[in-house]
């Protein structure tokens, strides 16, 4: 092959192609099969080198041993990359159901921005909910207000509460419930909005969609064109300006938006027969909450907040861990189907948030029920139940990890929650009608007066305390 082609290929893989070079390469590839083959072989070589050398396994070995056959080991012997590739999937699937905490944690890529969330109230979700937040994959539940999102490709969504929206990628989202208006400029042609009964492909337009009772989607095109694929039949409807259609799981019928009647019940929450919702907070029954610090009587303390901080190992005095006690009496004789534990964060004014990176918080359940009688005030580090040395450590013999959530750097307010099968199972396996949870920050701060996170406790004057929302009953009730 020619020197010219080698030069072009080299520039391609090193990203140094000039526009003229790239045009020349296109020309060669599109007209000459032999060149096309050469280029593909070259790119394949580049890709294979990245795969096999990439994590350092191969040539590091290669230098020490002459056993070159080890250079391209079989996939099974590549635990590192395997874990990297599939670890998050396994994690996500272990937290089946809503368990998106792990999902988001390992999907750091962001592709949209929550531009405006003024006056919005949010329910438990897995994404940040403050105005200006960058968003990646995850789920948002808007209780009230209108939130405006702008995707990097230019697509704009206005979501009206109550609504349940899942962001999947830079050009796809799923509206599980509620209403949204999408406006897609030319750059966002092909933006998808999925609903339970149909898939909407935007072709440069503005349209509204409303999902009711978890399965019916009403689509109205304000301007432009939307292609809607009916989920069950696969039939594609081309909707033009001014047209509307209703998609149920089985049918697709023209829609007269003026005929829309008022709604009598909140249809965004519907539970199967026999199941009901129970809410328990640290302010109900014998509930209690507090926190423990490495050193008692620290100057910085709070009566209304649960303070949480993982300090550097040489500053153990400043470690703080939250304790949450919930009175489970309302659950006696029922079976928990799913559970969500929610914390409301609020600024503490203690330390510099820029000295703490994006943080992971872990929630542990106290398995040793003899220790449930802890004091909410003036708890001591040494006697705090299930505690261990270290800013994020707990005693593994007396506790069980139930889930994690993330708080981005600098975010000092908002709602964080976790909803895992482990949490529901933990609640079901309590013998006493009481549960103790420990909240720790796994992420270590810089040690330079780094921020202390704070979550509203039961005595907070305005914000909700740590709260469990539970779906109980249904199959297996009375266990």
């Amino acid at each position, binding site marked *: 092959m020619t020197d010219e082609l*080698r*030069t072009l*290929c*080299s520039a*391609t893989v*090193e*990203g140094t*192609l000039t526009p003229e070079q*790239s045009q020349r*390469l*296109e020309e060669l*590839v*599109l007209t000459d099969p032999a060149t*096309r083959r050469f*280029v*593909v*072989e*070259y*790119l*394949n*070589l*580049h*890709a*294979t*080198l*990245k*795969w*096999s*050398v*990439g*994590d*350092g396994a*191969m*040539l590091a070995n*290669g*230098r020490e041993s*002459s056993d*070159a*056959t080890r*250079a*391209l080991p079989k996939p*099974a012997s590549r635990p590192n990359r*395997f874990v990297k*590739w*599939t670890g998050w*999937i*396994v994690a996500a*699937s272990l937290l*089946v159901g809503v368990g998106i905490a792990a999902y988001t944690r390992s*999907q750091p*890529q962001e*592709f949209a921005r929550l531009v405006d969330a003024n006056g919005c109230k949010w329910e438990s979700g897995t994404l940040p909910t403050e105005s200006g937040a960058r968003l990646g*994959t995850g789920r948002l539940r808007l209780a009230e207000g209108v939130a405006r999102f702008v995707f*990097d*490709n230019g697509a704009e969504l206005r979501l009206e509460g109550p609504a349940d929206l899942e962001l*999947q990628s*830079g*050009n796809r989202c799923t509206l599980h419930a509620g209403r949204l208006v999408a406006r897609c400029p030319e*750059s966002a042609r*092909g933006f998808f909005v999925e609903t339970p009964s149909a898939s909407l492909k935007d072709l440069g337009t503005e349209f509204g969609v409303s999902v009711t009772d978890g399965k019916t989607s009403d689509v109205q095109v304000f301007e432009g064109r939307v292609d809607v694929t009916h989920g069950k039949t696969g039939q594609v409807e081309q909707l033009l300006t001014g047209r509307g259609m209703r998609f149920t799981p089985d049918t697709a019928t023209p829609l007269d938006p003026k005929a829309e009647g008022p709604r009598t019940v909140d249809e965004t929450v519907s539970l199967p027969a026999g199941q009901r919702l129970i809410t328990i907070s640290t302010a109900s029954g014998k509930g209690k909450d507090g926190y423990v610090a490495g050193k008692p009587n620290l100057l910085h303390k709070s009566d209304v907040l649960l303070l949480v901080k993982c300090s550097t190992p040489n500053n153990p005095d400043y470690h703080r861990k939250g304790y949450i006690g919930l009175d489970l009496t309302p659950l006696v004789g029922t079976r928990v189907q799913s559970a969500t534990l929610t914390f409301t964060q609020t600024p503490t004014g203690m330390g510099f948030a820029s000295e703490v990176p994006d943080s992971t918080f872990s929630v542990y359940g106290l398995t040793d029920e003899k220790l449930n009688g802890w004091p909410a005030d003036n708890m001591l580090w040494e006697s705090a139940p299930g505690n261990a040395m270290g800013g994020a450590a707990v005693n593994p013999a007396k506790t069980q990890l139930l889930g994690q959530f993330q708080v981005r750097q600098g975010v000092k307010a908002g709602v964080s929650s976790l909803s895992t099968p482990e949490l529901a199972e933990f609640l079901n396996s309590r013998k006493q009608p009481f549960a103790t949870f420990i909240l720790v920050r796994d992420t270590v701060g810089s040690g330079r007066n780094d921020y202390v996170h704070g979550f509203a406790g039961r005595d907070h004057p305005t914000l909700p305390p740590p709260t469990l929302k539970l779906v109980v009953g249904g199959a297996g009730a009375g266990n």
Partner: protein
Amino acid sequence: MTDNTTRVDEFVRLLAQNQRRLFVYVHTLVPNHADAEEVLQNTNLVLWREFGTFETGTNFAAWACRVALNQVLAWRKKRQRDRLQFSDDFLAAIAKETQDANDALEEQSRVLSDCLAKLPSDQRELIRLRYTEEGAIEAVASRVRRTVEATYRALSRIRHTLHECVIRTLARENRA
């Protein structure tokens, strides 16, 4: 729960079996490593999400590559604001050729390790730096105390050597 666990197991097994193929495929279409990683992550996500529509017993690799190609196209679209290097036609031609030549390319990947082992140690080191460091060619150049220009030329030469070696090795195998 059991059904779901089985399905998860199946997915993880299939992805593990095909991860190299998928990785190489995406890297072939998107030579920049960071970009390719991004596309791969999106691909994984879609594969997992759409796994319900995948029929057990059919060709997972082919399905995964189709999904990956769509992700590459979607990613390019997103990047439209940046300077686009190649046309969709070009990418389609490369994607098709990659699939058509899959068996031959797999063979080439297989013997590449032998060819790497035959390189003089300084060249092998250069390849190692280039393909392990996240950094660009500048970082490699400063590590080996050469100019960027010289490093660039050296890497280009080494890749050429490797390609020739791969072709020669396979030709010899076929004669044997």
